[in-house]
């Protein structure tokens, strides 16, 4: 139980750190392809952590993981591609 709750606490701290970095990138006026890639990568890592650890999809049947991780990948990849096309 203690290991499990420490694990959840660690994930929470990582999610907060990712949020702070994303906020800083936006607030300091960073823009451009490199910044957008970083922002979307952080969103991907944060989303993957929520799916794996909070939604507890880690270790469940592959089809379930593909459905939800695939959703995250699809949404971020399409927006990255649209950014490249538009800029």
């Amino acid at each position, binding site marked *: 139980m203690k290991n499990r709750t420490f694990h*959840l606490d660690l994930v929470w701290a990582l999610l907060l750190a990712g949020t702070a970095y*994303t906020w800083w990138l936006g607030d300091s006026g960073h823009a451009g392809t490199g910044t957008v890639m970083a922002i979307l990568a*952080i969103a991907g890592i944060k989303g993957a952590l929520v799916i794996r650890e909070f939604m507890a999809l880690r*270790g469940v049947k592959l089809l379930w993981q593909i459905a*939800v991780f695939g959703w995250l990948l699809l949404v971020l990849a399409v927006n990255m591609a649209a950014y490249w096309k538009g800029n």
Partner: protein
Amino acid sequence: MHSELTDTTDHDDRPYPPGDLAIWVFILAELAAFALLFVLYGVVRAKHVDLFNEMQLTLDRNAGALNTVLLITASWCVARAVAAIRTGADRSSARWMACGILAGFGFLVVKVFEYSAKFDAGIGLDTNLFYMFYISLTFFHFMHVVLGLLILGFLLLKTLRGGYSADDHLGMETGASYWHMVDLVWIVLFPLVYVMR
């Protein structure tokens, strides 16, 4: 359904997601709806980059970041509530659930202030394409937070009445899964709408 999932084994050992199968069908449908909106946002933004970049600067990024912190924290609290009930610690579970509800309610308060500032400035769905997407996306998500909080409130009441135990907590896992979906969607929404430029 999935009654074998209500045991106390760690989630790594289970073949199916926690909670009732029906909620996962609902979650996948909701994610598909949000995916459509996110893809549309990206495609339309690509055709109106200057407008979207200019309008994005008028958003309150601090409020968006604060709301991200609140939703992440709410999700963490709910995950801790589920972890606690798996060991039969129903009092602890109820406390974590109450903290999750508080953080989720905080999200709504911040969002209402954010909407008020925009509506007071005369901004609405018909202001321009960016604000049509901003209001549609965030309000659709807002309604999911409201529903999620109603579910968490029900879970809290049932926990306080001793309705869940280490051997029987499928309902809590079901509600928690829905709440984490609401968090996941915002984790994507915040950078797309508030930060990416």
